[in-house]
């Protein structure tokens, strides 16, 4: 249940966080779109830049190539004009120039750089002024490239590649005189003479072409931008559609966080989202299963499967509300098995568990279907029978006892006939407090037991009203004391019998009565057990003992405390964890703490108790077997149990001096304890003679008024030592 609650809380926190942060968070669609658009814009810009610069480069390259081609053609076209007045060639030259709008002007020069004539495409160029000749520098430059691979000089503007001028030499070549009579294809160039005859200058203007191309590039860029915008819009649409399945998960997840495990997740069209949906379905299913399991664990007794105390109280409360609303009566049965302890001690707790299960089954069959049955703990059961008056309750109780009498339980060739005592109380509009009702039935049950067991006793409000009031009163006081932290601890020293020095203190709980006086636990612990407060009291004692240790260890570094814990403390599985955390919080060394558990609990050794005791020992804590001798366990068990101390029950000490049986028994316990490596502690030691005798019997430690009374603080109390021990110390000193 706790795990489920934790998981739900986490889910709720997540949803709350999402809700809280939603307004300040970016939307995934927008973020992906931003990345997409930025990437596309970047690619687009790069493409545009590449288009522009690539276009420029291609242009320039083409200009150069065309220029070279035209230069060669004009060179060839013009060469006849150097040598003769060839009008046909001139016309051909003019046609050539006219056919290329990019050729602005072509001018020819003789070998000395003097202008010969020019052909222009520029209609505005109508001046008849003679062309200027070539400068010496131009002549030298152009002459130097005769016969080269690139036989021209390019004069252009690096910033504006659209206009440039080419100056190329015009030369003729001739083979040597006898070259053709001894023609060698491989050496023909070597047998060639060269003669420079003139120059041709070509002024090229690619502005028109350039502008036309740039206009095309602009159109391409515009088209690219339109594509980019279209791509962005389409991408947004596609993304929104793709992410819709994620958005649609929000509501089911929110429902899941609220605890609605039956929430329905719609199947997603995409594999990734579908995986998430499947995982959420699995989560919801697992949570549902775990929830059911935890609910069952929280409401049912693990041994019998019946309702536990908590759930029964809920059912009882609901029934009482119904009585208040609709009137009527219900009967509450408190059932305690007779001689169950005998079976348990004789055959072991597994046998006891089997018996409990059998009784639970029989009980379930004994009552009407509408009845609610619960196990309160140990061998105690309760039954709520709605709509039952006194007569119906009597009949039902008799049925139960009758059927139970027929139960025969066989264990190890022993046949046990289990009877039960039943206390019954009737809930009515005038008796509708569940705590009171439980207490009433419990008291009636105890009365039935006291009256000889195996019988039914109805609670009589007139006869037992005060007792009930007292118990219920204690329940309320204890509840308040726990809530307001008003319980108190007392510390009673336990001394070494030989040295008389205090070895440790037993922590004893006290509560304040109505008159403000301190009340011993005998008065209120039964009520605490009955009303389910015992485990809480145990934890309170552990925590406050640790606090007391932290408080007093400065003045007493050797302080050691013995803490009593009941069987109820082990009902929760996390007792060792609680002890560890508490001790860590207050820096309590575990080896300075002794946990005292009763003999009856130790002997039964339920699995959960044994495991937790083991963990406490692993932690370093010591263990004491309390009230030893009052149970029915065999002495041989002592050797098997992992205890450090055996506390001999006070009943054996009170009449020790006059009862040789008690003396022999104590000696036996001390001997066995010594053999098993355990120290024995005798309680209720009130006079020196008993002390001396206990030492003689081999007891190691003593506790009682002779040693020290319980006090608010753990004081060091020296106890008298016997003469024998004193002598021993002197001898050892000597």
């Amino acid at each position, binding site marked *: 249940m706790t795990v489920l609650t934790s998981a739900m809380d986490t889910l709720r926190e997540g949803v709350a966080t999402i809700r809280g942060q939603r307004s300040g968070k970016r939307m995934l669609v927008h973020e992906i779109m931003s990345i997409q658009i930025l990437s596309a814009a970047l690619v687009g810009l790069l493409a545009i830049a590449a288009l522009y610069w690539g276009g420029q480069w291609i242009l320039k390259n083409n200009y150069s190539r065309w220029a070279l081609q035209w230069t060669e053609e004009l*060179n*060839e*076209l013009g*060469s*006849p004009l150097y*040598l003769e007045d060839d009008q046909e*060639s001139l016309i051909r030259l003019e046609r050539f120039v006219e056919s290329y709008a990019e050729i602005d002007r072509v001018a020819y020069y003789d070998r000395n750089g003097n202008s010969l004539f020019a052909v222009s495409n520029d209609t505005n160029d109508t001046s008849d002024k003679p062309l200027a000749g070539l400068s010496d520098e131009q002549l030298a430059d152009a002459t130097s490239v005769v016969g080269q691979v690139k036989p021209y000089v390019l004069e252009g503007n690096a910033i504006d590649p659209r206009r440039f001028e080419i100056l190329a030499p*015009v*030369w*003729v*070549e*001739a*083979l*040597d*005189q*006898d*070259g*053709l*009579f*001894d*023609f*060698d*294809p491989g050496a*023909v*160039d070597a047998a*060639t003479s060269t003669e420079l*005859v003139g120059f041709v200058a070509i002024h090229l203007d690619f502005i028109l072409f350039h502008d036309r191309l740039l206009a095309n590039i602009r159109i391409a860029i515009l088209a690219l931008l339109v594509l980019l915008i279209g791509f962005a819009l389409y991408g947004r649409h596609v993304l929104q559609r793709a992410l819709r399945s994620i958005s649609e998960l929000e509501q089911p997840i929110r429902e899941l966080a609220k605890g609605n495990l039956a929430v329905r997740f719609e199947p997603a069209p995409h594999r990734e989202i579908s995986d998430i949906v499947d995982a959420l379905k699995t989560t919801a299913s697992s949570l549902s299963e775990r929830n059911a399991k935890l609910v069952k664990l929280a409401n049912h007794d693990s041994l019998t499967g019946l309702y536990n105390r908590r759930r029964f109280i809920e059912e009882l409360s609901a029934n009482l509300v119904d009585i208040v609303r609709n009137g009527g009566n219900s009967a509450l049965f408190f059932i305690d098995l007779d001689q169950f302890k005998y079976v348990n001690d004789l055959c072991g707790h597994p046998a006891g568990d089997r018996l409990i299960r059998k009784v639970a089954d029989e009980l379930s069959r004994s009552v009407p279907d509408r009845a609610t049955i619960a196990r309160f703990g140990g061998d105690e059961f309760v039954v709520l029978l709605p709509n039952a008056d006194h007569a119906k309750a009597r009949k039902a109780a008799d049925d139960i006892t009758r059927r139970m009498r027929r139960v025969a339980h066989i264990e190890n060739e022993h046949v046990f006939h289990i009877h039960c005592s039943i206390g019954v109380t009737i809930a009515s509009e005038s008796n509708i407090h569940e705590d009171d009702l439980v207490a009433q039935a419990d008291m009636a049950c105890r009365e039935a037991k006291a009256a000889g067991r195996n019988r039914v006793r109805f609670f009589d409000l007139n006869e037992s009203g005060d007792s009930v009031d007292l118990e219920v009163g204690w329940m309320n006081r204890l509840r308040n004391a726990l809530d307001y932290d008003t319980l108190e601890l007392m510390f009673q020293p336990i001394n070494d019998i030989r040295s008389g020095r205090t070895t440790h203190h037993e922590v004893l709980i006290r509560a304040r009565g109505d008159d403000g006086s301190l009340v011993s636990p005998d008065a209120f612990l039964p009520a605490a057990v009955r009303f389910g407060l015992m485990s809480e009291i145990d934890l309170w004692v552990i925590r406050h003992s640790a606090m007391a240790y932290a408080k007093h260890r400065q003045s007493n570094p050797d302080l050691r405390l013995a803490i009593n814990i009941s069987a109820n403390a082990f009902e929760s599985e996390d007792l060792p964890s609680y002890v560890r955390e508490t001790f860590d919080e207050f820096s309590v060394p575990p080896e300075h703490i002794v946990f005292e558990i009763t003999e009856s609990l130790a002997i039964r050794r339920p699995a959960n108790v044994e495991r937790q005791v083991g963990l406490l020992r692993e932690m370093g804590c010591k263990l004491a077997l309390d009230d030893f001798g009052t149970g029915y366990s065999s002495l041989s068990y002592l050797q098997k149990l992992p205890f450090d101390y055996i506390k001999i029950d006070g009943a054996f000490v009170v009449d020790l001096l006059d009862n040789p049986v008690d003396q022999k028994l104590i000696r036996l316990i001390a001997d066995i304890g010594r053999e098993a490596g355990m120290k024995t502690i005798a309680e209720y030691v009130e006079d020196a003679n008993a002390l001396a005798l206990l030492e003689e019997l081999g007891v190691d430690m003593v506790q009682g008024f002779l040693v020290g009374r319980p006090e608010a603080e753990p004081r060091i109390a020296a106890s008298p030592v016997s003469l024998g021990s004193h002598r021993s110390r002197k001898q050892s000193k000597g």
Partner: protein
Amino acid sequence: MHFSMPRPGRQPRALALVVLATVLGACASSPEPTAGTADSLPADSSVSTTLSDIIVVKPTDPTPTSPSLPQKPPQVAVVLTSRTPAFEDVATALSDQFDDLSIYDLGDKSQPPINAFKLINDSPTDVVVAIGLRAARSSAALSAVPVVFSQVFNYHDHGLLKQDSRGVAAIAPMQAQLAAWKTAEPGLTTIGLVVGPGHDELLEEAELAAVQHNVTLLTSVVTSDQQALYDFKRMVRNIDGFWLLPDNRILSGRALNEIFEHSKRRGVSVLVPTPAMLSSGATISVSTVASDIAERIHDVVQSIVSGDSSELPPVTPLQAVQVEVAARPGDNASNASSAPRASSQ
């Protein structure tokens, strides 16, 4: 520099495998040419393996030599521009024609040319035979005896034709060239020809030959390789054959390359004066034959020695041609050897 050729006797030389036919007037009366076989190809004539046929035509009726009385053999000095094969082959052929022959090589850099002519002038040399332009120019300037020049194409430019000097043509007769070409390329209809100035007679001869072979001839006289290229590119669209003459003044490496390249692109056949050009892209070469040149020189020398030089033309035409046709893609040796591709008139 001066050496005497060993006399190999009077046996015909290097022509054993060629077929003789009539040239000039005899060509028409003896129209059966005989094609040479593959075996007849000289070892070094298979220019880049494209050579397919060689045809040598020779008059069946030897040109009548001048009527003569018994006289002493002329003493001849042969001056070579250099010892290139084209000149040396002629000198070798001359050694078959004259008993008393001295040869001088101006290409020998160890001695100045004037030394050779001192020796010639001091000797009882009757005639100087100059082979190549340089030898002809030097001989014209330095020789004290009549000069007969050969292997000179542009002889007009250098004043070689003096009163007692004569020449032998540097190229095969135009008619014979066209005849061979027409045989190899029967579909030839229009021919272009570009030549430098000073060759009016040659152009007339070419035009006459064209008329006889029913071929249209487009001619152009240019003064440079640029101009030659220019005219060639204009005429190349309209011709299916280009007649390349060995005029060094208007030809250059770049011009030849472009002529061959354009011709190849347009499928124009190119006739060249030397087989060496076949590997550069020409389709047919019609060249001279060294023995024919030597015989024509011999005749001229005899006329000069006998005092009949006034009857001689300034330049005596040749009578034999050697034809080589570049193989077309797909041709092989057997085809080349079995298919005669030229005929004489």
